[in-house]
């Protein structure tokens, strides 16, 4: 597997090379198009001006001098030629010397056309751009004006020091490669750190965090990773706490059951004491059964990908049935349960689950209320939602415990006494079920005055 940094590095180097090659071609092209064309145009203009000096007849010495004088003012080399030998005048005959213009060019010049040549010229022993203008009179090529300029081709310039050029390019590429490599290392470092952190996480070290050093995508990724790590760590801790709590909760009844059953088996206790012990064993077994049931329920409700069946429910009916189930328990403590319900409210939900919610909440209210107190269960529609409000005048919940009240096994009473009954899972189950109904659970409480639990459920719109 190739590293990402090597891929990016290669990509940059390839782009760089392509750019260099393209630029060299493009420069050549521009050179041809602009420099050469421009020179050609200037030469033609000068040539035409010089051509206008010629008034016909033989090309005179004066004319030749005038043209050559122009060399002093021009960057181009210019001269006039009248020697017919140089002008390929003898061409039907074999010529064994190098003429200045060829027979084809002579034909063009005879027609009065200007000839432009670009290339190596033996006469000047170099590449030149030349412009030749005819001096014609009555179809006679009396002479020519020859302008030329050495083509300092970029390649020609480089030819002499081509090794130096190649060396410079290689060196330049190496330097660029080095800096790109360094730059990439710098950019990739947070990624490498992230990778190390992920490996540590996989090994179970959930406390791992990566320092956020940049504000870019990698920085965002690092932040997201840190958040994820924190979430995993929290979850892990919660799980550990949960397991510890569960084992603690189970150990106590088990040690009761074990101790008393052993005493009975070894006949240490008899008669009335034995009956009481059996009673205790029975109670603790019940407790364990309830605890395991609730754990099972909690585990099930946590599985969000196992949705339960939802259908329209008349909320008042569900509340009444739930209250009826708890009527005896309430009457034992002399507690009055007042029901104020809006009969028209219909919500989409699972009746069993909602009953469970109501039972848990009302049970809690009964449990933490003093004797002969009253509990109020109210339903109404607020802002398109159904509101269920259960108010008691019980012992209340301390403010600092309120945010944690729905956590499994969280108890306000840290002594975890079994005297106040609950398993510590009730409100967790309530919260889960409400969430599954897309609802909202709010618990308000003032210590010593009472607690109000409010549940908002989306109402089923009448079609």
């Amino acid at each position: 597997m190739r590293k990402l940094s090597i891929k990016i590095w290669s990509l940059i180097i390839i782009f760089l090379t392509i750019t260099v090659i393209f630029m060299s071609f493009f420069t050549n092209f521009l050179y041809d198009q602009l420099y050469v064309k421009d020179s050609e145009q200037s030469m033609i203009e000068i040539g035409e001006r010089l051509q206008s000096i010629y008034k016909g007849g033989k090309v005179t010495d004066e004319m030749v001098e005038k043209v050559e004088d122009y060399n002093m003012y021009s960057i181009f080399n210019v001269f006039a030629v009248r020697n017919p030998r140089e002008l390929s005048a003898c061409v039907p005959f074999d010529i064994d010397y190098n003429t200045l213009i060829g027979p084809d060019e002579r034909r063009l010049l005879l027609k009065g056309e200007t000839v432009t040549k670009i290339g190596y010229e033996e006469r000047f022993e170099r590449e030149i751009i030349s412009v030749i203008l005819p001096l014609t009179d009555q179809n006679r090529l009396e002479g020519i004006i020859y302008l030329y300029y050495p083509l300092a081709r970029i390649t020609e310039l480089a030819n002499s020091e081509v090794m130096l050029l190649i060396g410079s390019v290689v060196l330049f590429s190496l330097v660029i490669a080095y800096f790109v490599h360094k730059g990439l290392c710098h950019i990739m470092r947070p990624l490498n750190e992230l990778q190390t952190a992920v490996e540590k996480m996989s090994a179970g070290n959930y406390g791992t965090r990566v320092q956020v050093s940049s504000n870019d995508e990698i920085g965002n990724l690092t932040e997201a990773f840190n958040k994820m790590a924190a979430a995993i760590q929290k979850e892990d801790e919660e799980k550990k706490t949960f397991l510890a709590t569960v084992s603690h909760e189970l150990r106590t009844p088990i040690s009761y059951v074990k101790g008393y059953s052993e005493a009975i088996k070894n006949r240490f206790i008899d008669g009335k004491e034995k009956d009481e012990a059996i009673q205790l064993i029975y109670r603790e077994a019940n407790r364990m059964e309830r605890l395991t049931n609730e754990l099972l329920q909690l585990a099930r409700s946590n599985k969000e990908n196992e949705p339960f069946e939802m259908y329209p429910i008349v909320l008042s009916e569900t509340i009444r049935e739930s209250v009826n189930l708890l009527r005896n328990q309430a009457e034992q403590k002399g507690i009055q349960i007042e029901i104020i319900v809006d009969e028209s409210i219909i919500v989409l939900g699972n009746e069993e689950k909602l009953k469970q919610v109501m039972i848990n909440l009302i049970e809690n209210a009964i449990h933490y209320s003093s004797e002969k107190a009253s509990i109020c269960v109210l339903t109404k529609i607020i802002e398109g939602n159904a509101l269920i409000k259960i108010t008691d005048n019980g012992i209340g919940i301390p403010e600092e415990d309120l945010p944690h009240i729905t956590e499994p096994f969280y108890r306000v009473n840290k002594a975890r006494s079994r005297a106040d009954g609950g398993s510590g899972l009730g409100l967790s189950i309530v919260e889960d079920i409400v969430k599954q109904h897309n609802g909202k659970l709010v618990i308000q409480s003032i210590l010593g005055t009472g607690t109000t639990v409010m549940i908002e459920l989306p109402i089923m719109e009448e079609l």
Partner: protein
Amino acid sequence: MKRFLIYILPIYLLLMVGCSDEKFPSINHHQSFVASMNILEPSMTFYDDLGDEIAEWKFEKSYTGALLIPHDRVLLYGKQLPEADIYELSSGKHLATIDTGLGITNSYYDEESKLIFMTNSETNTVTSYNQHGEKFGECQLGEYPMSMDSYNGLLYVVNYKDTKLSVVNIDTMTLQNEWSIEKSSNGILVLPEEGELWIGGHGEGSKPNQTVDVHQLKTGELIDQINVSIMPVEFARNGQEIYIINHGANELYVTNSDGETLWANEVGANPFAVASFQEKIVVAGFDDNKLYFIDRKEIRKTVDTGNGPFQLLVREVK
């Protein structure tokens, strides 16, 4: 079968056309003419003494030269052609072909021996043929033999790329003598009454020649140099007047046989050929494709001719 015919018929027709003898416009037996041999688009244009066009022969082959030979015939040859062709003027018909080999640069007819001579630049030889085109003899010469003239059983050949003139015995076709001359010499004229031989030329390298060299006919000794303008390359003669064409100066230069200048006149553009025809001087301008008819020192008529007139042939029927 029909299909077969469709394919075969055009080929058959093509063969028929190809095999049929090429026939050019005929030239009357009694017609005097000056003809210009045009080499850029090979053709031959015939004119009468008034300068009116009689006929035009357009050639498929890239002929570079022509020679009038007895019995109403013309010999056509080309430097890039392996053979020379003989046509009859009065019928325009092809009569014979002579296998010459590539590299024919010039041809010459000697009245005295009635032989045709052709110089070859590939083999550097001159070959003589009888009037039927049969090879008579051959002689090895210097580099690139071209200009020829004859007198008294001797053929004088200028070797264009060499520094010598070859003197060949016509009867034996053996090299009799070699004279020292300038390189790139071209144009030769024997003046028997003066015992002189005049040689023109382009000049060596890029330096143009500006003289006509006069050699003694017997010894070959350079006895005089006639100053003319630039690059005298061909001579023509009418009685006491010698016409010299200076192609570098576009000038016709006229001297007497003593080499004294009679008159000179600018004519044509890059003229290579000059001829005397019916008391007129005819000059061919190579660059302007024109023939100039000069009478009493003045250009009397200018006519357009084919592309690249390089040679003038004259027939004067008495």
